[in-house]
């Protein structure tokens, strides 16, 4: 009965957002794929994809990107989960913590990268402090092209600082939607804090975890400005190569091939998370 009364209204209300998605997401996505599979004259070809695969920077960019995802996502999850639990514990001043944690969200990716450069550059804050404490004799070069793994660590740190709070916010929202009755019931049965987290909170949080994981992984595949700021040409990632081919080299076709690869990787990881973390109906808020 209820469904019938609503009639076409829900669909009409969905139309604007659907149109928006079609015009600004689906169409450019489709165009990017087409662009990646055509050459300058508009012929269908795999030449741009081959060009990308044979590009001197391709393997470097791919491995760095994958490493970043593998390192950033778990680190941020552990951090975000602890932060979310602290905020959700409703301790005195927990509202303040939420704001403090969320601060980096207000800073642009590139600005954050530049701030971290001032920390890690040879004459930067970190070396000055270490030298001041007498821990090192001469500055350590953190951003050396000869130690790309060290640059990678600086990028992971900067990213963890910059983008953990977005996950935290999703998790806090998830935590707050868990009905207090469940936890009270667990208390009644004498569950310890860890048992409550393990058997009540985490399972109930699964939908939020899934969203946060998907979001963070997709964003990690797109990491760009912090890598440019901290790594220069010493390390590179897929998004940086896409940008280079589009603006510096002015070859939209190879750039589109890179963009297509990033999209494919994002889709594969999303499907993987949906499959690995299925949510049951009772977990839906």
């Amino acid at each position, binding site marked *: 009965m209820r469904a019938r009364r609503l009639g076409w209204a829900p669909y009409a209300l969905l139309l604007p957002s659907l149109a928006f998605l079609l015009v600004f997401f689906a169409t450019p996505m489709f165009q990017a794929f087409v662009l990646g599979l055509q050459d300058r004259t508009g012929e269908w070809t795999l030449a741009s994809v081959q060009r990308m695969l044979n590009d001197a920077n391709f393997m470097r960019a791919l491995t760095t990107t994958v490493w970043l995802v593998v390192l950033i996502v778990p680190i941020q999850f552990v951090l975000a989960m602890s932060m979310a639990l602290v905020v959700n514990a409703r301790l005195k001043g927990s509202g303040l913590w939420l704001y403090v944690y969320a601060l980096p969200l207000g800073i642009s990716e590139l600005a954050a990268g530049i701030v971290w450069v001032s920390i890690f550059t040879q004459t930067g804050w970190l070396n000055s402090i270490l030298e001041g404490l007498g821990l090192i004799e001469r500055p350590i070069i953190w951003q050396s092209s000869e130690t790309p793994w060290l640059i990678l660590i600086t990028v992971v740190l900067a990213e963890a600082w910059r983008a953990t709070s977005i996950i935290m916010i999703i998790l806090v929202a998830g935590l707050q939607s868990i009905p207090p009755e469940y936890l009270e019931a667990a208390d009644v049965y004498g569950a310890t804090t860890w048992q409550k987290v393990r058997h009540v909170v985490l399972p109930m949080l699964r939908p939020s975890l899934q969203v946060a994981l998907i979001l963070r992984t997709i964003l990690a595949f797109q990491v760009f400005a912090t890598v440019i700021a901290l790594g220069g040409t010493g390390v590179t990632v897929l998004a940086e190569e896409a940008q280079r081919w589009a603006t510096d080299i*002015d070859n939209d076709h190879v750039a589109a091939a890179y963009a297509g690869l990033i999209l494919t990787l994002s889709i594969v990881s999303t499907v993987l998370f949906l499959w690995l973390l299925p949510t049951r109906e009772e977990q839906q808020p």
Partner: protein
Amino acid sequence: MPTTQAMPWRRASGLLAAVALALAACTGETSPTPGASAAASAAVTDGGPVDIGQVVMLSSQLVPVEEAEKMRSQILADFAGEVEFIGAESGPFNDRVRAEGETGSGDVSVIGGLHGEFASFAADGLLMDLSDVADELADLGINEQYLELGKLGTDQQLYIPWMQATYVMAARSEAMEYLPDGADIDALTWEQVTEWGANIEEATGERKLGFPAGEDGLWHRFFQGYGYPAFTGALNTAFASDDAVAMWDWLADTWQYVNPQSTTYGFMQEPLQSGEVWVAWDHTARLIEALRSQPDDMVAFPAPAGPSGRAFMPVVAGLAIPNSAENPDGAKELIKYLLQPQTQATTLSAVSFFPVITAELPGDLEPGQQAEEAAVTTMTNASDALPSLLPIGLGDQGGAYNQVFRDAFQQIILDGQDAATVLDSLAGNLQEVLDTVEAACWPPDPESDGTCQVQ
């Protein structure tokens, strides 16, 4: 008033102009433009009642945020009309000029670019004849040789010279005591730079040479205008030659004394100022801050020489009006404004591009600019000077061309691959770029019959 003494930049600018013209393949009969209508240029400075309206200026020069900001807030501040200044990297720059040219209508009324970029636009008939503007500006004494370059081999003035620069070396004074024995800083060789770096490393334990090999550094210009010509006497025609391998071997050897953070450097003035680097090569506009802020602790000196000579790259930027210009009259006013002595002086002090006019500039040169000017003069005057032009006629392939040199650097120096093998494989990419736009060789490569052939 004596003028030559008071305005030393004239020497440097004149010399740069002379070498650029002598090299330009596009020579034509010089048609001097005597007679001046002083009234016209006076109208610009007066502001006057003329309604100039809005002028959109697209530029491949002054793109870095700091430079673009100074362009907007200082250089353009006194213009009577309203200017929207858009800095764009070579890719988007080319795309926009061409897109607007092809549709025959557009927002952009003034294009600021390099000689090589204008050559491509002119070849496609996108640029307006500015002979009338050149005539009106005759009393400013715009360098005749640059004006000739601006004709691009035609009898029309397709662009008006705007400003000029080049690349030199700078060092902190701490580095001077480690100069190799008997080395003359004004006549160094690249081998001596290696020795210099080694001396510093031995004494301090730190690698203090520096190059702008970062994302927005001009590292590719090092290879195109300094490394290759100095070691091979050529560029494209010697890309994979034995002499080229010798250049890469030299760089690989030198790299052990180069700060490994160089791959993050865009502008060498910053690491020079902080002391991360003691000896650096870069564009004059990207060294000036160091020379200006610490004039007593910094020296500027000519680019070193290789076996084939003291190669250097003069940079000539110009101003043009596309046929599709929305506001051509306003555009002409803007060009006249940018050439006025006061504006040229502001340009020099704000972004460190040197003037192209011989009329007297107001004010004195700052010590940093004097240092650069002296280095440029010594470099262009050197008996072994080997000027090398910026790429000409690459159109939208400019970025792809630069990438070949950056790829070579990545693979040979950073990844440690065999130079000869890498160069052989990249030679194909380079030829493909040149073939795509059918670019002829430019100096120091010998003149080519048709498309330049990589060897």
